[in-house]
């Protein structure tokens, strides 16, 4: 029996076209987020690895790497945060590659939904995952002696900048994921570009320790400026100052890099999604 308030014929909701992109993206993101509490193994591995990194770097390298104006642990944490958020974007690569091998993508493609929604949903759910991982890391950091010195608002801004950067990286990851033939390949390819991105930076060592040519690369690596901006916002030691625009204006350069990445990879990923067909 149907209740009198619901009509027998489907009733369509109305909203502007761009509104549907967000509406549909959120529905797809919810699909991924609902899975998280149901597959606890995901959490175990997503959390245990960064925590191990914190402990390893803090206690193994902590004494070996001197940092001007503070302890290495204080210096380290922003780097670990950025590395974790970077690697978090590999979820998008694997998730999309997995969808491509399954019938669910046929379902999505047969629905009158926004064509950017499947990718947008993945990159959105990635930020949520990233945020949760980050909260655990922040407490781990506090436990090993890392502190926020410039007050909570600036710390929140630092986290927001990092999540925005992570969102931009997820679109690169999405674009890669849509080229993957299967999840096995995606598991490797999804990570491979993240190693140079996260290590060729100021995440773990100050930039002045690099040889000159490598230093230039690390300096212009947007992840370095995100890390520097965070260190400044947290009031952590930043290491000796080096060179050009990315390191003198880290916040502005970080934002610029995110916007450029999004402008390039959002259209690339959406176009690739439209063309990809599950089988």
């Amino acid at each position: 029996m149907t209740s009198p308030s619901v009509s027998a014929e489907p009733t369509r909701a109305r909203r502007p076209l761009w509104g549907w992109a967000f509406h549909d993206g959120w529905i797809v993101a919810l699909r991924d987020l609902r899975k998280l509490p149901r597959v606890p193994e995901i959490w175990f591995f997503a959390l245990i690895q960064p925590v191990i990194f914190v402990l390893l770097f803090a206690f193994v390298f902590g004494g070996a790497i001197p940092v001007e104006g503070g302890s290495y642990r204080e210096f380290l944490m922003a780097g670990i945060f950025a590395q974790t958020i970077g690697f978090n974007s590999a979820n998008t690569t694997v998730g999309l590659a997995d969808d491509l091998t399954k019938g669910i993508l046929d379902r999505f493609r047969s629905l009158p939904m926004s064509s950017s929604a499947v990718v947008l949903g993945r990159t959105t759910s990635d930020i949520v995952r990233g945020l949760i991982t980050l909260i655990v890391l922040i407490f781990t950091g506090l436990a090993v002696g890392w502190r926020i010195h410039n007050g909570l608002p600036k710390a929140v801004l630092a986290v927001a900048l990092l999540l925005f950067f992570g969102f931009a990286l997820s679109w690169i990851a999405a674009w890669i994921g849509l080229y993957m033939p299967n999840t096995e390949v995606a598991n490797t390819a999804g990570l491979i570009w993240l190693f140079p991105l996260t290590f060729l930076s100021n995440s773990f060592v100050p930039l002045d320790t690099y040889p000159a040519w490598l230093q230039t690369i690390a300096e212009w690596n947007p992840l370095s400026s995100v890390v520097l901006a965070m260190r400044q916002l947290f009031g952590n030691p930043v290491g000796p100052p080096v060179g050009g625009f990315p390191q003198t204006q880290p916040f502005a350069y970080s934002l610029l890099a995110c916007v450029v990445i999004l402008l390039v990879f959002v259209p690339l990923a959406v176009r690739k999604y439209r063309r990809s067909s599950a089988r």
Partner: protein
Amino acid sequence: MSTAISARGLVKRYGAVTALDGLDLDVPEGTVLGLLGPNGAGKTTAVRIFATLLTADAGEVRVADIDVRREPNKVRRVIGLTGQYAGVDENLTGRENLEMVGGLYHLERQWVRHRASELLERFALVEAANRPLKTYSGGMRRRLDLAASLVAKPAILFLDEPTTGLDPRSRLDLWAVIEDLVAEGTTVLLTTQYLDEADRLADDIVVIDQGRAIAQGSSDELKDRVGGDRVEVVARSMDQLADIEKALASIARGSAVIDPDQRTVVVPVTGGTGTLLEALRVLDSAGLHLDDIALRRPTLDDVFLSLTGHAAQASQEGS
């Protein structure tokens, strides 16, 4: 009666492989068309083009009188698709899957919630509604998959091999559900490898081979074309196969098929069980010994054999 689905000269190539080679078909509104053919015949490719998942290299397709190539999103609002691979999320519950699909059809939330309950009840999934799909059996998953394609009450439904891989009981259940939908006026295009499935569900059958329609008609018409029923004889010894064929020639309505490996002789016949007695009589009077004899309905293999001259084997994978 207007046409719900029409295709003219549909061509689709994958590199050197031609999946569809000028397929024509029409499905009148409110009827069921069975697209019958072996693996690789092009069935799935055709459905994927109708359901806007693929674009044809040539030809014209109209679904609900909308050009599929030009306005795919308009087509998507009026169709439902159940593919060969479950189009549902393993980690979501049955209800969540249905509500997700409803949301993506851009239907009002309240309405979707209600519709989901209605479908769960109809497909006997109320008890499993709040369990993740991982815990579902194959039959339950197929039912939910079908329910998902029905959320927006589509006027046109595409079912790509809906019962392949199901146990006989689940198969019968799913048939009953599809029959209900048809009774309500839904137009259905279904692909199948099984003649009995097409026989039970379809008003009209198009037999497709190597990307082309090779025969069309009701199941009775097709069976008449392939010569009605079959008498299948299993000989006691190999060397009697030829004699059996000769003895059965008097009742055969076409040429016999001999399979030495199985020691079988199969001949097309007309006239029902009486023919079986007749066959026994002629074989007995010729003094031939049998292990088994049976009268059976023509299978897809028989249809293929008589229409194409070759067996219904998977020609080319990857449709």
